[in-house]
């Protein structure tokens, strides 16, 4: 009986964990509450995933009100996968956060940290699970507001506050654009349900209202996903947030915005409208290509590892956008594959950097000398994940790049193939720079003076790090796991919802009136 209500529980439990952390007001107890809830949520998301793959799409009517009246949760393969992805990354980074936060955040703010974390998790899961366009905005705000707070808790207080403020400004502009867009859609169609919108948009697609809504939503999502010209909030936020938050943020937040992108433009507006009639691809492709090329180049010249990885993140968003703008089945599948792979890889990289920071106190490339001998487990994890970022065979990155390049070759975009390969060479340079420092640079003065014992961090940090690495390597060796999911997801996205709004009235799960 409870399994029918999993879609509600997976949102409500993290939501309730937030206030419980506040009531406990104790650093360790609030971490324990967050951890327990997170473990439960991981199992729930896996259960939902298998439920979806066995029985097809799940629709859950909140409050027993059927879809056009009430809000419904709509879960197909794509969201079910992302639910698993978000909860696992959250769990790994949360385990890691106990020692890291102890070092980086003032003791009396710990309970606020875990409260914010749980609320952010609620928001992210909510965005992914909901089938209601306005509900997406509400959850987007829940996750963003708690994320601003989490970033502001960073150890370098002044810069963290500025980074958070900058993200707040950009994020609010993005969110309000999305809200305006959804408002216009409501005005044009009279419904907020995604399935309802997908049904009614073709009837009014000539109207200027829908065009304006489309433009606002596009711009808002581009800001939220940190696509090339509007990425300015990202590098500082990644650098100055507490490292656990950075890993969580890098793994999930931009990915969730890209998920909204997929859901709205392929399924709700329909790819014929967005990419056929409005030529969204012609706008996105140049942006994403310049994005991944220029940002990889910028990453080469950074000296702080966190900044290198931040610019590399923007570049990866560029790859995903380029794959989406092909608007073919292969392109969308490649985008989904890269969303999943990059989430694990980037989270692992930032956790590794967090471990280095935990022992070393800074993340400058110049002070990384000789670390391979001092911190072998951490640096080797970094190297494996770094190779994945480049796209070396047997790593997750190879699977994504292979799919991306294949999709581009299929429609004859040879110049894009060339650009992707050149940009991968740049990735070799910026990751190679760090690896070179690990191996060949002599130890920096700070390290050789030995005022702090430099060794591998506690197991509490290493276990989540290697869990993420093992997941990404497994994806690299057995790529079909992710590719199969992505193919199903792409098929569902391109075929529309496949159910009509009216069917909901009869199929209200678990209601007993």
């Amino acid at each position, binding site marked *: 009986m*409870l399994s029918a*209500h999993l879609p*509600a529980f997976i949102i*409500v439990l993290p*939501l*309730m964990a*937030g*206030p*419980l952390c*506040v*009531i406990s*007001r104790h650093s360790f107890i609030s971490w324990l509450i967050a951890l327990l809830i997170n473990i439960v949520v991981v199992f729930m998301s896996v259960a939902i995933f298998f439920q979806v793959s066995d029985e097809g799409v799940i629709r*859950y*009517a*909140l*409050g*027993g009100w059927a879809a056009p009246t009430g809000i419904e949760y709509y879960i197909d393969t794509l969201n079910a996968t992302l639910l698993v992805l978000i909860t696992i990354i959250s769990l790994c980074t949360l385990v890691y956060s106990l020692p890291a936060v102890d070092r980086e955040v003032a003791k009396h703010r710990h309970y606020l940290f875990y409260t914010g974390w749980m609320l952010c998790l609620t928001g992210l899961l909510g965005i992914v699970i909901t089938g209601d366009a306005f509900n997406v905005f509400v959850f987007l705000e829940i996750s963003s507001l708690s994320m601003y707070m989490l970033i502001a808790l960073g150890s370098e207080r002044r810069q963290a506050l500025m980074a958070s403020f900058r993200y707040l400004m950009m994020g609010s502009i993005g969110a309000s654009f999305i809200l305006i867009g959804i408002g216009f859609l409501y005005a044009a169609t009279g419904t907020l349900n995604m399935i309802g919108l997908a049904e009614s948009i073709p009837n009014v697609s000539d109207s200027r209202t829908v065009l304006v809504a489309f433009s606002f939503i596009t711009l808002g999502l581009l800001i939220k996903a940190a696509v090339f010209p509007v990425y300015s909030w990202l590098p500082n936020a990644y650098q100055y947030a507490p490292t656990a938050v950075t890993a969580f943020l890098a793994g999930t937040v931009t990915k969730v915005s890209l998920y909204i992108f997929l859901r709205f433009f392929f399924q709700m507006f329909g790819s014929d409208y967005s990419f056929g009639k409005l030529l969204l691809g012609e706008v996105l492709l140049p942006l994403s290509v310049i994005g991944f090329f220029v940002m990889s180049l910028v990453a080469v010249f950074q000296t702080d590892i966190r900044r290198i990885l931040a610019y590399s993140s923007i570049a990866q968003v560029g790859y995903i956008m380029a794959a989406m703008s092909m608007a073919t089945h292969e392109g969308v599948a490649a985008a989904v594959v890269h969303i999943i792979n990059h989430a694990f890889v980037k989270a692992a990289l930032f956790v590794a950097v967090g471990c280095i920071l935990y022992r070393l106190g800074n993340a400058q490339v110049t002070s990384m000398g000789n670390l391979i001998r001092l911190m072998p487990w951490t640096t080797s994890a970094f190297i494996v994940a770094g190779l994945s970022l480049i796209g070396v065979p047997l790593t997750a990155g190879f699977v994504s790049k292979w799919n991306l390049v294949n999709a581009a070759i299929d429609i004859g975009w040879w110049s894009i193939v060339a650009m992707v390969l050149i940009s991968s060479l740049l990735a070799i340079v910026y990751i190679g720079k760090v690896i070179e420092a690990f191996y060949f640079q002599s130890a920096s003065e700070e390290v050789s003076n030995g005022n702090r014992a430099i060794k591998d961090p506690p197991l509490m940090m290493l276990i989540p790090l290697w869990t993420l690495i093992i997941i990404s390597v497994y994806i690299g060796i057995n790529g079909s796991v992710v590719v199969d999911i992505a193919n199903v997801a792409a098929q569902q996205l391109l075929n529309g919802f496949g159910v009509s709004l009216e069917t909901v009235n009869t199929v*209200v*799960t*678990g*209601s*007993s*009136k």
Partner: protein
Amino acid sequence: MVKGLQQHHRVLQVISKLFIPLILLFAFYVQFHGDFGPGGGFQAGVIFASAFILHGLIFGEGRTRLVMPPYVLRFLMSFGVLLYAGTGLVSIMMGGNYLDHSVLSEDALHGQHWGIFAVELGVGFTVTAVMITLFYCFSSTRP
């Protein structure tokens, strides 16, 4: 100093002492009559908090902190959310969907009534506590 200030604002103090209970009473009216007429948790919470804010403006924030200490507020804030979310869990236990109030009582209409009542009470708690906390944050001289 405090004494002088008090004498200076004698009229305001007497009047506001008269008003604060009335404001609180009106907040309760808006809260509990919200399911029949205009009103509800948000409005009632703000009105309820405004009584404390008035107290803070007239008698000084320090005294209001004695009446309504921050730790109580922190508890109320969280309790409101838990009450709201908990109502939904109760309706799952009674066999309905999340937040399906119809199953809370034998009669669907009564069930909806009870559900909204509990949910709005949660909203009221949280809004009251958040409003007063905001007032403390802005008026506090501590860094």
